[in-house]
Every structure is written in C-alpha cells, then in structure tokens.
C-alpha cells in the first residue's frame, strides 16, 4: 500500500464526513493468528499438534505448498478431530472414531 492510496482514500473520507472528526484512521496493519477450531489440539493418532503436519508428513519433509497446507484437519460427526492423513489410514482398518468408537463419518474438513 503506497502513500498516495491513503491520501486518495482520505480525501474521499473528507468529503463524506466533514472535519468534525478528531482523528482519521489512515492505515491499520492488523495481525491475527489462526488455528484449527478443535477441542483438543493434539491428534490422538499420531500425538502431534494438529497445527503441525502429522508425523508421516513430517517424515517425508513435505513442504507446505503455497498457501495450502497439505496436512489438514478432519472432524467427524462425533466432533473429534484428527489429521486427515492419520484418519484416512485409520479407517482402512477400523471405521470407527479412535476416541469414542462411534461409526466414523466426516462432518467437515479443514481448509
């Protein structure tokens, strides 16, 4: 964002609400942090934090491709969450949630 942009926007601002304002907010560089919306931040299958790639992916040293994390989180209907990689291996043997033994069906996937 260059200075000219702000001045232009600023002038637009001026037109709308006259100078009864004490301050104008010219610029705001916000910082936020995202994390998976999970109840437990550790994947119960590989015991790695869900924010990190699962053990298997770490072992393969997969680089996060631009913007898309390869190792995403998956939520079941039971609201338990795991690494998608871990879970897809798990269901090949046992189609139940490892934590509550309910039939596993995907509620949503992290993106």
């Amino acid at each position: 964002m260059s200075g000219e942009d702000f001045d232009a926007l600023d002038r637009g601002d001026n037109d709308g609400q006259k100078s009864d304002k004490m301050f104008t907010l010219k610029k705001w560089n916000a910082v936020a942090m995202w994390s998976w919306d999970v109840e437990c931040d550790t994947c119960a299958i590989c015991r790695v934090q869900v924010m990190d790639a699962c053990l298997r992916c770490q072992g393969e040293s997969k680089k996060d491709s631009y913007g898309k994390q390869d190792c995403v989180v998956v939520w079941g209907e039971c609201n338990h969450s795991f690494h998608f990689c871990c879970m897809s291996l798990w269901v090949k043997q046992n189609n139940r949630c490892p934590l509550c033994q309910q039939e596993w069906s995907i509620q949503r996937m992290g993106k």
Partner: protein
Amino acid sequence: MSLKPRNVDFTETWTHLKETVAGVVGLRAVERSVWNTRFSDVYALCVAHPEPLADRLYDETKSFLEEHVAGLLARVRGSSSLENNDHNDGLLTRYVTAWREYSQGVAYLNSLYSYLNLQHVKRQKVSDAEIIYGSAATVSCPENDARQLEVGELGLEIWERVLVRPLSTALTGRIVSALCSARDSTPDPALATTLKEAIHSTVQVRAFRVRAPLQLYQQLVLEPYLAAAGAAHARMAAALLAAGDVAHYTRLALQQLEREVSLGARFLDASSAEQVRACYERAAVAAHLPALHATVDKLMRDAATDERDGQERRDDLRRMYVLLRPLGGAALRPLVDAAHAQATADGHALLAQPHNKDEAHTHFVNAMLTLHGKYSKLFADVFGGAQAFIGALDKACSAVVNFRGPTDSCARAPELLARYCDCLLRKRGGGGGGSGETDVDEKLSAAIVVFKYVDDKDVFQKYYARALARRLIHQLSASMEQEEAMINRLKAACGYEFTNKLHRMFTDVAVSADLNAKFQQHLRDTNASTTPGFSIQVLQAGAWPLGGAMAPLAPPQQLERPARLFEAFYRASFSGRRLAWLHHLCTGELRTRYTPRVCHLSATTPQCALLLSFETVDQWSARDLRDALQLGGDAWWRHLRPLLDAALLLAEGDVGAGDGGGEPAPDATLALNLAFSCKRTKLRLTCANAPSHQGAATAGAGAGANAGAGADSGESATHCDDDRKMYLQAAIVRIMKQRKVLRHTELIQEVVSQARGSFAPSVAMIKKCIEALIDKQYLERAPAALDTYSYLA
C-alpha cells in the same frame, strides 16, 4: 637338409658347435652360413636318433659357459685388491666391459639355441599358475633347482654364480663408495655410465626370474647403500642442526632430500625410489623430531604475524611440513596442535579487542570471519590445505565461537550471530552506508560459516525466529528474496527440521499478501464500503515465536468494522479455522485533525483505540476508559504511558502508573490535549518497555534492547533447557526402541551424535533425562548388569 631325426655323432658336432659358441659369446664375427649350419646342428642334436642328445648338449654348453665366465672373472679381477673400496681402481670399468660383451653374447647364443629352448626347455618350465599358487617345486630353494633353463638364462645364472659371487664384496664396496661420492660432487660422465651399468647389471642378471628378481640387486647394491646413506644423512642432519637454526636446517635438509631422490632416480633401479626417500626421512628427519618439535610453537606464532618476518617463517613451516608429512600422524601431531593453539589464541585475542558494545554482534562476526579467513588461507598456503589442519582450524573456531567466560551462563554466539543477521536483513534507514544487495548476500553467506561452528544452534534458532517474526510482522525486511535465501542457507546447513518453522512463517506472509488482495476484491465485489488502509497478516499458530497471552481489547468501532468484515470473509474462505487478533502486534496510523498542523501518529492498536475513544468526548474517567477498552493488567499502563509522555493525553490523578498493572484511582481522569503540537509531522509511538512474557516480538529491538537483553536471554535459556530435555528424551526413546538393550556409555554416545546437529548436550543433562524416562517407565535398568538399560515396550 632333412628334418628327419638321424644318428648324430655328438662329440664331432659339439666340437664344431663349441667353436662357434665361443665366437658368439666373445662377440667375434660369425659367418651367416656357419651360423645356419650350427643352428641345424642344435636341431639335429635335439632330435637325434635313437637317443635325443639335448640333455647332453645342455650340460656341455653349461660347463663351457662356466669355464668362459671363470676366464672373464680373472680378467675382471685383474690386479685389483679385493679388500679396498677404491671405485677408481678400474675394477668397475672392467666389470662393466665384460658384462656388456657377455650379456650381448649370451643373448645371441640364446637365439642359436632357440630350438633347444623352445622344444626341450620350455616343457620343463613352471607355469605361471604354479608360481602363483606355489606347487611343491617352486617352494624348493631355487639354488637346488635342477631344472634346465633357457640357454640365455643359463648364461646369466652362470654369470651370477661364477663371476658376481666371488666379486660381490668388492663390487658392493666400490658401488657404494662411488654413489656416496656422487652425492657430494657430480661424477665424471664415464664413471657415471659405468656405475649405472654396473648397478643395472645386477637387476638384469635376475630379470628372467619370477621369484625375487631384485634379490641380487638388493643384496649387492641397495641394502649396503641405504645403510651407508643413512649414516651419512644422520651426520649431515646433526651438523645442520648444530650449525644453525631450524630455518637453516629445513632449507638445506630439503635440498639434500631432493638431491638424494634425484641421485636414486639416476643410478638406482626405479623400484627403490620409495626406499631411498624413506631412508633419508628416517635418518635425517625422524631422528631429530624432538629438536624440530621444540621449535614448532614459536614458528607457528611468528608465521601468523603479518610482518615481513612472517613470510619467512611461513616458508620455514612449509618446508617443515614437507619434511614431516611423510613420517605420518605422530610426527605431525605437534604441528597440528600448535596450529590449533595458535588459531585459538588468536581468536580469543581478536574477540577481546575493544569494541563498541552496541556493535558487539558485528565485532563478533567480523572477528570470527577474520580468524577463519586468515587461518584458512595460512593453512592452505603452508600446509596445502591438509585435512588435519583444516580439522585443527575447525576445532579452534568452534572453541572460540562457543567460548564462555567464567561469568557467562551461556555462550553469547547464538544471540550475537542472530543479531548480526537481523541487522543485515532489516531495512536500513536512509541510504545507510550504501552496502549493496550483493554485499549483503555475501555477508549472510559468510555468517553461515560462523553459524556452522555454533554449538547451541537451537538457541540461535530461537533468536533468529524472533527477529524474523519481528521483521515480517512489522514489515522491516529489506528484501523477501534475501529472507528466503537465508532460510534456505540455514536449511542447507542444518536440515529441514531446523528451518521448518521459519519456512512456515515466511509462507504465512506470502499467503497473507494474497489474502489481502482477495479480501479487497471481495469487498469490491460485494459493494461493501472499502476499509481504507486496512491490511492484515494471518499467521498460523504454532509456527511463530509469539509467546504470552494475547491482551484482550475491545476495539472501537473504526477498527471493529474492518475486523468483522475480514472475519466474515475469512470464515467463508476457509473452514474449521479459528481467528484470534493479536492486537499488541497490530499497528495503526492516525492523523490528527484538531491540531493546527496535521500530525501523523503511528501507534499500536490499543493506543489507537485509546486515542479514538476521544473522538466524541474530551475527557474520560481513567477507570471507565480502561473498562470500556478491556485493557487489563499491565497492558493498560504500557500502552498509555507513551501517549502521556508525548503529551497527546493529559492525566489528572493516579491513572494507574506502574508496570505491575496498578489500579487507576476512581477519580483519575484522562483528557485529550487539544493544544497538542509537534514539530515533526510524523510521530512514532512505541511501547518500549514491554515485559518479556509478551514482548517476545519486540524485546531486543531498538534503544531499549540492552536493558531487556539480560532478562531476555535468561528467560530464553530456561525455555531452551526444557526444549532440550524434550529433544533428548525423544532421542533416547528412539534409540532404545530400536536397540532394546544398551549400555550406558553407548547410549550417551548415540544421543550426543544425534543431538550434535542442534546443540551439544551435557552428559549430566542426558543422565537426568534417562532418570526421568526410568521414572516414567519407558526404560528400566537391566536387572543383571548395572550399567545397562532396557526398553519397556
């Protein structure tokens, strides 16, 4: 003439043949027709009927040659006394003349007897296989070997037996004395040729033998010569050392070595070059090792100086190295040790040079690079970059880099190096020094050289990650390409795991830029009003070293709106993600409208929020304002104070001063200073005295760096210790899971080698970790042996 076997009268034929043989061996002219007839005679005798006469022919020839050589012996001996060793008495010359004639003659004779050789002798010869695998026949002593030889070989064998043996002492004495005088002064060409031929005759005489072809040469020439040469070398070296200093010795000793080698090459058999050299080294160098080693330390010290003298000492050292190298590791050890000691001492001296405390990081890295550069060059120059010396330099650098004074709790190298990188990667304020991009690239690559010597790489990583976070969040990086290049350099040095988080931080910033563009597009598409100057960075949790709880904040409406819009947009773009605002890292820029001169204020979000609260009211009760913004704890005072200091706000009563999160008095008020004026048009408000728990991203920056640094490094040390314990425990479990049962020392070794990539663990810490794992029942002490652990599945 028929080839058919027939009756032959041996005596008659042999009489003729013998005459011709005598002619051939004596190198007298033999007519072609006579030669041809005699050639047929040999054939006839070999195939004679009824009894082939080959064996008899062979025996007769043998005794003839023996007789002939005995004659030659008398000729060669002449009147010389065999006891003295005067190589100029003519014996050598006579010997060589006789040898030339005889060896030539025997070669011809061999052709004359070629039928006998081919048909009769060849059959009896030992095959190569028999020689290699040693049949019974070849094991037997060659002297008693009754097998027949080819006639040429027979001739040589007789020469050795009949002529050389009786003369051996005389020959040896003369050859050795001639060689010795040839070392001191160039012999005249005739003598040189004679000497050379005499020596080579001892090789040629046995050249046809498969076993020990050089035996005669070794006995007759090489061994006596080496014994004599060794004594001479030892005398020479002792004289050199007595006469002058080491410089004098090394120079002349090397010259002598060269002369000796060329002497050997000129006169001796090519196979002896190695022995001649070794003999010299043993006698002239190895025997004086203690004397040489005693001078090494001083030489090394002097060689490291830049003065004119240094060049000469370097030459001395180079020669010394050339002399010592062939003697192996033990002889070089003191040299290597001296190199190590000198580099270490020099390194400490460089680091101890007076310097500006604010420039400690630059001083440190530059000193290390100077040290490394200087000694790399010196060792390459003097020691040809030999592995042992590179190793010594590495050890020295590592010792200097990780040096810890008695008062330091940990080495400062990781912190200083990280700061050095930070300074290079940061945007430089206004034209700064004009160091170009390539220059910075070079400096960063050089920093990696120092980095490789740092033991506590994990500590470095922590410092580096913080500095990187700071640069990325506050957009202080000079260039993103350089940032990425540096991360890749670290990755090349330390591997994926080391830079994983750095990479993720870097990726987050790139993704955020994309996200901003998409967000603005989204706002345009939905015709929502634009949010001027809003930009956002969305960081992933876990990758950023942003410790501490996020201070809550209820932002005013001006900030709230873009935030809500973005949250909605983000939720629509991704799923399953939670977003948390890191207000203490956000920065805003405000423009004052109430002052005579417009002033731009850049401040943290809580500060913006504070100011924006005075949009509609001129005065707030401090307590109400604090509650309205939900600025709890020490955050309140930390953000408020710079506003008061800059006189933007005016306080009345106790508004909650003190870093401990003091409570504002109920009647305390804050008012907007309407008379605010500022000389500059831009004003940057900071909250410099951030406490360590929250200030991870800001501590160590700017002016307040030194005050905060002490607490900062103390805190990071304990933090680091915990990380290391986890790392070690994980390593121990991995190793034990694989090995099941392992002895204590082996386990320690394995753990140390695994951890070396990121830090140098202390044995005490490993022991503690083992104890902890035993408590947690991952391991147990094996019941039978005291120092053995076993893994509990």
